[in-house]
C-alpha cells in the first residue's frame, strides 16, 4: 500500500483481483488494518442500546463504554417508531397474525392488513393503486427493474439513491445521469433518448443535501419529450405538503407524477417501501417486480404499526408543525454561526466541512465525546471536496436538546475545541 493510504476510500476497492473469489482484495485488507482507517470506521456500526429516539444510549466504539447521547443521525423525523399508538397497533397485529406473513404476496403472504394499508397509501398519494414491499431499497430496485427493459432509457438526477441506480443496472436499460437539478442537462439527456421509452427519476428530498427537485420544470420537460416520471419521496413523505403527501403535493403537481415511491423506515418509523401508480402499472409490476413477487410479504406486526403511523401523522398537522418549528430553530442558528449548510430546504441539514477527512473525523470524535451522535459522511457517499455531517432534525427534539446540540457544534466545528 502506498504512502498516501489515507487518500483511499471504499470507492477504491470495488474491483477485486484476488484469485480466491471468496477473498477480499489484498490491498483492501491492508488498508482496513491501518490504524487511521480503523479510527475512521470506528464511527460506523456503533450500537444503540435503546430505541432510536433523539435521547438514547449507545455503546461507543471510541471508548467501549455506554453513553447517553443526543441522536441526530436516525431518520425518526416524526418520532413515530416509538409512538405509543403505533406500538399498541403493532402489538395488536402481532397478537392476531404472528410475526411473519409466511409467504410471497402472490401466493399466501397477502393478509387483509396489507390490502388495507396499500389501499390507504394509494388514497393518501392520490393514485389508483399501491404495491407494498418489505424493504425500501427493494421497492426502488424492484419497481425500476419491473418497469424498464433493455433498449429503454432511464434518466436520473446524478444524486439519486443507489437503490434507483441498482434497479436501472438490473433492468438492462440505458442509464443517463443529468447534472443535479440542472434543466439544461436534463434536456440534453432527453434529446439523447428521443423516440425511446424513457423514464425520468428524481427524489423529493436529496438525502445528502436536503434540497428539493425543480419538480414543475422537470415535469414540463417530461411532457415535452413524452417521458414518464418517477419520484422517490423517501425523505419527504409525511413531511412536505399541506397534508404531508410529499414534495409533489408541495409543488401542486401530484396528478402529473407517474410513479410515487415512498419508504416506510423514515418518517413512518417502521421498515419497508411502497410504490403508488396507476392500476394497470401496479398489476403489471405484480408479475415482473421480483422484489415484490419473490420476497415474503411484509411482517404483519410492522404493517399494523405502520397503518397507525399513517393515521397519527395525517389526523392533523401537529407532528409536522413541531418538526418544521425545530427545523427553523436549528437552521437559523446554524446559519448564524456561518456554517455551510449547502442548499438545504428540508429537515435534512448538511454541515459541509470540506476536503479534509481528518478534520471530519476529528470533529466527529469531539462531538461524540460531548454527547452528540452525529455521523460523519465521507467520500464516496459525498464528493471528496464536500465531506460533511448530516443532521436529521426530529419533531422529538426539545428546546434544551437543540440548544445543547448547537453549543456542541459551535464549540467543536466553529471554535475548533477538540
Amino acid at each position, binding site marked *: 500500500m*502506498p504512502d*498516501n493510504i489515507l*487518500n*483511499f*476510500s471504499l*470507492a*477504491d476497492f*470495488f*474491483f477485486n*483481483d484476488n484469485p480466491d473469489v471468496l477473498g477480499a482484495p489484498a*490491498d483492501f485488507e491492508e488498508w482496513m488494518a491501518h490504524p487511521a482507517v480503523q479510527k475512521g470506521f470506528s464511527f460506523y456500526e456503533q450500537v444503540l442500546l435503546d430505541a432510536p429516539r433523539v435521547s438514547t444510549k449507545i455503546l461507543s466504539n471510541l471508548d467501549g463504554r455506554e453513553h447517553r447521547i443526543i441522536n441526530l443521525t436516525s431518520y425518526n423525523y416524526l418520532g413515530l417508531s416509538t409512538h405509543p399508538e403505533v406500538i399498541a397497533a403493532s402489538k395488536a397485529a402481532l397478537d392476531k397474525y404472528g410475526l411473519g406473513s409466511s409467504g410471497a404476496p402472490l401466493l399466501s403472504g397477502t393478509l387483509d392488513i396489507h390490502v388495507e394499508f396499500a389501499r390507504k397509501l394509494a388514497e393518501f398519494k392520490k393514485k389508483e393503486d399501491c404495491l407494498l414491499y418489505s424493504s425500501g431499497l427493494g421497492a426502488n430496485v424492484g419497481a425500476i427493474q419491473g418497469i424498464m427493459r433493455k433498449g429503454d432509457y432511464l434518466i436520473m438526477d*446524478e444524486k439519486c439513491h443507489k437503490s434507483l*441506480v441498482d434497479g436501472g*443496472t438490473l433492468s438492462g436499460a440505458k*442509464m*443517463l*445521469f443529468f447534472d443535479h437539478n440542472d434543466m439544461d442537462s436534463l434536456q440534453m439527456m432527453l434529446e*439523447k433518448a428521443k423516440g425511446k421509452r424513457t423514464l425520468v427519476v428524481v427524489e423529493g428530498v436529496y438525502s445528502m443535501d436536503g434540497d428539493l427537485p425543480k419538480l414543475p420544470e422537470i415535469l414540463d420537460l417530461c411532457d415535452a419529450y413524452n417521458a414518464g416520471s418517477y419520484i422517490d419521496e423517501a425523505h419527504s413523505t409525511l413531511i412536505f405538503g399541506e397534508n404531508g403527501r410529499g414534495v409533489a403535493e408541495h409543488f401542486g403537481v401530484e396528478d402529473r407524477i407517474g410513479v410515487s415511491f415512498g419508504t416506510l423506515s423514515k418518517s413512518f418509523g417502521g421498515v419497508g417501501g411502497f410504490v403508488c401508480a396507476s392500476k394497470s402499472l401496479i398489476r403489471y409490476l405484480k408479475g415482473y417486480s421480483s422484489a415484490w413477487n419473490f420476497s415474503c410479504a411484509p411482517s404483519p406486526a410492522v404493517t399494523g404499526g405502520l397503518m397507525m403511523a399513517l393515521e397519527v401523522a395525517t389526523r392533523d398537522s401537529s407532528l409536522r408543525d413541531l418538526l418544521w418549528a425545530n427545523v427553523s430553530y436549528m437552521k437559523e442558528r446554524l446559519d448564524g454561526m456561518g456554517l455551510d449548510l449547502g442548499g438545504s430546504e428540508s429537515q435534512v441539514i448538511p454541515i459541509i466541512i470540506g476536503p479534509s477527512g481528518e478534520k471530519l473525523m476529528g470533529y466527529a470524535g469531539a462531538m461524540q465525546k460531548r454527547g452528540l451522535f452525529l455521523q460523519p459522511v465521507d*467520500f*464516496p457517499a459525498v*464528493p*471528496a*471536496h464536500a465531506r460533511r455531517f448530516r443532521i436529521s432534525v426530529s419533531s422529538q427534539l426539545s428546546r434544551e436538546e437543540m440548544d445543547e446540540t448547537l453549543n456542541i457544534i459551535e464549540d467543536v466545528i466553529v471554535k475548533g475545541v477538540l
Partner: protein
Amino acid sequence: MTKDEIIEVIKVIIEDNLDDISAGDIDPRKSMKDYGANSLDIIEVVSCSMRELSIKVPRAELAELQNIEALADKFLEYKNA
C-alpha cells in the same frame, strides 16, 4: 511509459466499454461524458485502465479531472512514481 501511450490504453478501454465509439475517434481533450459515458461507465473505464497500467490512484484524486488528458496526466504521475 509516455503520456501518449497511457492515452492509447485509455482510448482502447473506452472503445471496449462504450457503444458506438472507436478509439481513433476519441479526442483526449474531451471528457468521457462527451462520448456518452455515465458515471458507472467512467468508473469501469478508470478501473480497467488502472488494472492495465498496474497502478492504483485514489478515486478522491480523480473526482475533479475534466478530460481524458488530465486523467492520463494523473496516471502518468503514479506510473512514474
